[in-house]
């Protein structure tokens, strides 16, 4: 009996992973599940969720974008608990949809007609960072750390969509957020102060105009190196794709050597709370993080 109570989750969430989490960002999904299991936070995936439409949909068709997100919010109602979202872009689109449909009756009626259902806007949509920093709490996170990441110098990278536009994500201050620093700080790692933590990486231009990404992401890598960081930490699959997958190409174009591992924030947190490193997808990263983690005695 007592054993059962001890096994019960302290928190439970419905979970919207988003498309990347099942493909190019699978290590983000693996490490998220590992971390949450270790912290006894339940994650229950919404069945048969759809793509949120991301940037391409709202770029040319706002109604489609709102309808796709409203459909996902409707599907999420099947699962109990606030909706946990890992991808910064999915998070942003779902929050923008709630915001816009909540304040604009005309758009809400159009969307209801498009999805042939009443829109449900009541379920709180939360990014993983918010769950860890606020619902679970930094003190509890700190107490769960088994392997402090002391000596690791981390550049926390926010990118665009975790905090912007103002009044929508409600995650943290729109121009000077600290939530990533606070969460990583709870593991004992050191966070560097750097100039490009909120500059755009070029996002989905990686497909259509990779030259744009090489320039913008190159500037971000240069800034992290200037600040003396060992690695960059992100909470968005697109940011990760650009910083990690395109890093070699950027080195070739700029002649600058970075060899800078780019971690998902959940990978480092899970490592700190004692999840088996073999289950954190380090092998899927293009820039090999093993030498750095060995040097810091973390694996």
């Amino acid at each position, binding site marked *: 009996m007592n054993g059962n109570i001890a096994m019960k989750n302290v928190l439970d969430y419905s979970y919207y992973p988003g498309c990347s989490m099942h493909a190019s960002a699978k290590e983000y999904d693996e490490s998220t599940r590992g971390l949450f299991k270790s912290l006894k936070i339940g994650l229950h995936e919404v069945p048969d969720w759809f793509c949120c439409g991301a940037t391409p949909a709202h770029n040319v068709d706002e109604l489609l974008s709102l309808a796709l997100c409203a459909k996902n919010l409707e599907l999420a109602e099947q699962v109990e608990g606030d909706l946990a979202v890992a991808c910064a872009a999915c998070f942003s689109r779902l929050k923008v949809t709630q915001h816009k449909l909540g304040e604009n009756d005309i758009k809400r009626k159009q969307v209801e007609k498009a999805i042939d259902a009443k829109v449900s806007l009541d379920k709180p949509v939360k990014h993983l960072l918010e769950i860890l920093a606020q619902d679970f709490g930094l003190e509890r996170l700190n107490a769960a750390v088994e392997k402090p990441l002391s000596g690791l110098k981390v550049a926390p990278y926010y990118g665009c969509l975790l905090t*912007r536009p103002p009044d929508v994500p409600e995650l943290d201050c729109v121009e000077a957020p600290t939530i990533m620093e606070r969460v990583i700080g709870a593991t004992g790692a050191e966070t560097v102060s750097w100039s490009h933590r909120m500059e755009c990486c070029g996002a989905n231009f990686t497909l259509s105009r990779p030259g744009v990404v090489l320039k913008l992401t190159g500037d971000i890598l240069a800034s992290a190196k200037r600040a003396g960081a060992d690695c960059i930490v992100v909470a968005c699959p697109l940011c990760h794709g650009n910083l990690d997958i395109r890093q070699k190409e950027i080195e070739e174009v700029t002649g600058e050597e970075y060899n800078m591992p780019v971690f998902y924030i959940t990978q480092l947190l899970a490592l700190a709370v004692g999840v088996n490193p073999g289950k954190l997808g380090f092998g899927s990263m293009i820039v090999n993080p093993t030498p750095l983690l060995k040097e810091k005695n973390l694996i």
Partner: protein
Amino acid sequence: MKNIKNTKMELSQETMSVGFVKKVEALSGSSVRRCFQCGKCSAGCPMRSFMDHPPNRIVRLIQLGQWERVLAGRSIWYCASCETCSTRCPNKVDLAAIMDALRKLSWDADGPSKESYVQLANRLFINNIRTYGRQYEMRLAAVFNVKSGQFLKDLMLGPKLLSKGKLKMFHQKNKNLSEIEKIFTRIEEMRKKGEAP
């Protein structure tokens, strides 16, 4: 020569294309006319060096009735939707939403924009949602290369990502796939009837 320095310049409502301005304002939910050209949007824009007209000039061109130049140019397609402009505007002009509205107008008109790659990528991305319900990155990249005629683009990247398990050979399947098709069809019908923009 006439001294133009102290003469008043008059612009008619027609010259300024107030109709177009109102259309953009209705679609975006943001004022276009309130912009007073401080330039803060362009100062923070990460994409300005790739644009033919920086963001503040886009708004000025629309205010002055030069919208055809905006829709034909590549600036609107080089906006990354990072929302920095909307965040920093001191006059609450939501430039990111205005960019969405301008892209939609250009997209619907199948206009003469110089930027085709970004439009192609958007089209394939949206088609993927309609066909598969979720993104299928492998197909997205492959079809983009074929349709844009860049067969060798990122050639070395594909096998590397496949070996890391980051690209899947097969797409994810939704049991409720027919529902996504219904959403697309309903939106098309609403537009035919003039019930939605």
